[in-house]
């Protein structure tokens, strides 16, 4: 593995502090200027089972959880055996080829060739500093950070922050970590790594938090959501900052209420959004169409997890695309965005707030568990953003028509409270002025006119779409098409192919619907087009083929885990050579 990057994994049972130890490691790296990405493997339980947390860091840009494993902190025997066994390959994760740190009490394991066993008396050291048994994790973190040559001061600061300042508990943990750090240094040899640590701190956050930040930057005033993994990380972040961001936050009785509330608030002129995973989104479906029919702005955050039904609640998938594209009866304009990474999540959620109001229609921001729950570094936030409330009617406007036919399809919106613009917004089909035409007075000509008016908004949006992003595509013989969260892994896989002399490049789709017509040009004259996605049936592949009439090959993964660059590169190579 490259000397310029490091992968550390903490393995243990749920309740053993795996995640909290992992976040200390991750933060130590982001504070020393490294690019970081974490990966969280866990189950839908509070205690027991097997979970692990992986941190990859480098002074070069890290784009995925990566292949390889340099340092393992094994919090129990199962973790030690599991992550060192070259036969075991959980969802694509690499077995250890490097240092294993574990308590000296663990003995009798089968030794593996590529593992340097570094037993540390974790519990014994912890006992000297604190009565809390989880402090042994802190000792292990100290040892692990010594093994890769990180300065202890950085680790100490992160631990203090984790335990809320300079109190007794924090200092106990710092001294325990220091002893673990020193123990490793005195007894073992550190890894041969050349990481450029600096004092340029980077931001470290997850996709859920990026949704919250993006929405707030985009003028969010109200968030209504119902808890469901993996959409809850956004709900938690937003809830905990309601006062800082002046937000009205509510968890109502169900997702049906949540979306109807978000629609009600937007109708009243307040930027509101809702969010859920596929199960909750399924409940929102009827109201989504109402927002389309009434032409009320609405942003919905849809964080996918493995389905169908309750599925794998703590596992990732991109299996909700058909649901999102087809949600609700009839045809109405909708915009579907699928951010590719954490910062893209921030940017696109923010943009979604404007798009919804500009086009007065639902905008769905699709993420997934992989993107919503891993942490990623961000160098800098650009908060410079202009809020666009779209076309609004002036008070007491003469002959006001809520759904006035316009070339763009966008009609002036009136907000309750504005004098002289009273009208009815109706889920029944209606005329320009909002009067119902669905029953006795059904008029085919009028129906055609109002349908075409609404649908014209999509054409207007397509005209303002930015060009589709690509990666190493210019001279590529093989176009790899990805959408949403798989960006980093696919780019790294393509780098591997390029190093082997295979001319591959990536077409990156973060605007899933409508698709940018410029994709047609990007697909042209390739020897092969390969679509990569995290689902069973190739939902995006079908969309791409039907829109651009191209023939493609498909690489899928639906085991609940994300793609890994090395394994994906192998699959791509096979597919390309077939």
């Amino acid at each position, binding site marked *: 593995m490259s000397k310029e990057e490091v992968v550390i994994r903490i393995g243990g049972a749920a309740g053993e502090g795996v995640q909290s130890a992992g976040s200390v490691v991750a933060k130590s790296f982001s*504070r020393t200027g490294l690019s970081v990405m974490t990966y969280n493997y866990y189950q839908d339980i509070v205690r027991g089972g097997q979970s692990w947390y992986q941190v990859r860091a480098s002074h070069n840009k890290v784009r995925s959880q990566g292949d390889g494993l340099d340092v393992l902190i094994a919090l129990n025997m199962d973790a030690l055996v599991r992550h060192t066994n070259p036969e075991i390959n959980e969802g694509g994760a690499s077995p250890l080829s490097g240092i294993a740190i574990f308590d000296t009490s663990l003995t009798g394991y089968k030794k593996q060739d590529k593992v340097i066993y570094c037993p540390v008396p974790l519990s014994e050291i912890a006992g000297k500093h604190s009565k809390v048994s989880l402090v042994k994790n802190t000792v292990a973190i100290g040892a692990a950070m010594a093994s890769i040559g990180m300065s202890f001061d950085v680790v100490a600061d992160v631990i203090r922050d984790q335990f809320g300042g300079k109190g007794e508990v924090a200092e106990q943990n710092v001294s325990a970590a220091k002893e673990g750090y020193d123990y490793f240094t005195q007894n073992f040899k550190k890894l041969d790594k050349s990481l450029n640590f600096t004092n340029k701190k980077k931001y470290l956050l997850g996709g859920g938090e990026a949704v919250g930040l993006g929405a707030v930057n985009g003028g969010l005033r109200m968030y209504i959501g119902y808890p469901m993994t993996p959409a809850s990380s956004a709900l938690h972040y937003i809830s905990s900052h309601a006062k800082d961001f002046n937000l009205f936050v509510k968890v109502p009785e169900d997702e049906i209420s949540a979306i109807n509330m978000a629609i009600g608030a937007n109708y*009243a002129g*307040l930027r509101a959004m809702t969010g859920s995973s596929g199960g909750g989104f399924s409940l929102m479906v009827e*109201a989504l169409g*109402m927002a389309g029919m009434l032409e009320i702005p609405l942003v919905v955050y849809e964080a996918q997890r493995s389905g169908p039904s309750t599925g794998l609640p703590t596992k990732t998938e991109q299996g909700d695309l058909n649901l999102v594209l087809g949600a609700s009866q009839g045809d109405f304009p909708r915009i579907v965005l699928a951010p590719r990474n954490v910062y893209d999540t921030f940017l696109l959620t923010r943009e979604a707030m404007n798009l919804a109001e500009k086009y007065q229609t639902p905008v769905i921001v699709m993420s997934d568990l992989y993107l919503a729950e891993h942490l990623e570094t961000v160098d800098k936030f650009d908060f410079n953003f202009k809020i666009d409330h779209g076309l609004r009617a002036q008070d007491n406007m003469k002959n006001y028509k809520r759904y006035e036919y316009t070339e763009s399809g966008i009609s002036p919106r009136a907000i309750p409270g504005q004098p002289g*613009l009273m009208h009815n917004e109706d889920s029944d089909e209606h005329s320009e002025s909002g009067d119902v035409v669905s029953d006795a007075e059904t008029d085919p000509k009028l129906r055609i006119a109002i349908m075409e008016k609404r649908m014209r908004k999509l054409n207007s949006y397509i005209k303002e779409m930015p060009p589709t992003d690509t990666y190493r595509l210019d001279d590529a013989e093989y176009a790899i098409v990805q959408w949403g969260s798989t960006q980093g892994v696919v780019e790294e896989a393509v780098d591997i192919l390029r190093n082997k002399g295979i001319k591959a490049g990536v077409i990156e789709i973060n605007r899933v619907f409508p698709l940018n017509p410029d994709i047609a040009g990007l697909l042209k004259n390739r020897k092969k087009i390969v679509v990569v996605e995290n689902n069973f049936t190739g939902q995006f592949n079908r969309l791409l083929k039907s829109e651009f009439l191209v023939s493609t090959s498909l690489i899928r993964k639906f085991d609940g885990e994300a793609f890994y660059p090395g394994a994906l590169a192998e699959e791509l190579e096979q597919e390309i050579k077939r």
Partner: protein
Amino acid sequence: MVTVADFNGTVKPDWCPACGNFAQLSAIKAVLAELGIEPHNTVVVSGIGCSSNLPEFIKAYGFHGLHGRALPVASAVKWANPKLTVIAYGGDGDGFFEGTQHFYHTAKRNVDITYIVSDNQIFGLTTGQASPTSEIGFKSKTTPYGNIEEPTNPLTFGLAAGATFVARGFSGDPKHLNEIIKRGIQHRGFSFIDVMSPCVTFNKLNTYDYFRKRVYKYEAKDLTDFSAAYKISQEWGDKIPIGIFYEKTERSYIDMDPVASQTPMIDIEPVKLNEKLVEEFL
């Protein structure tokens, strides 16, 4: 000066002649005018059903949404802009079948809106099926052998859910109905008014005559007496009480919200993000 005519819509109601909904439409318009609430500050939200067509027939901000979903929309409109007078309106199928969960939770939250249900004990728009308030033995297209399910008691349910204003009106007594709706709109908190509203086309049992023989005006000795309210809510049969059963002043939902209790949400400027607000990620 606001007049009833200010609320006259341009669309003629599509209800059957003598439908109980007419009395409620008139009452709502009369009360709003009497209270000096202007049409542009009035929002009427409904679900789906014959009665739910009402927003089309009143000049105000109307929102004719989805079956059973008037209350979440109405709640959020009020939370967004508390200066608006928000009325949620619908039928018994809309409110006590499809929207039951919203009825319960909106009452419990004490959202400051008025919820008027035109209760005709049948589905009218879908041409005559038993509804949640249809009586035992009631014959309809879907209950040809007679309804076998115990009807919902909306007033008991509203009280149990925590509504702070619970009343029953009768479309056959418009003057009394006006008074109840007026008190409901004036009440700060969740007002629930169940209006017995004969369906002249599909319900041949619960007719104007049926109610005229049975209704009497109930006057509570103490409107805050929950036990008395519960007891009177249980009365149904040869005698049917109409009037205000319960009223209690409590803080409404928005009064408790850490942000919205300070300033109306619609008047709060969005926060400008800066580096300080993302410091926690460093």
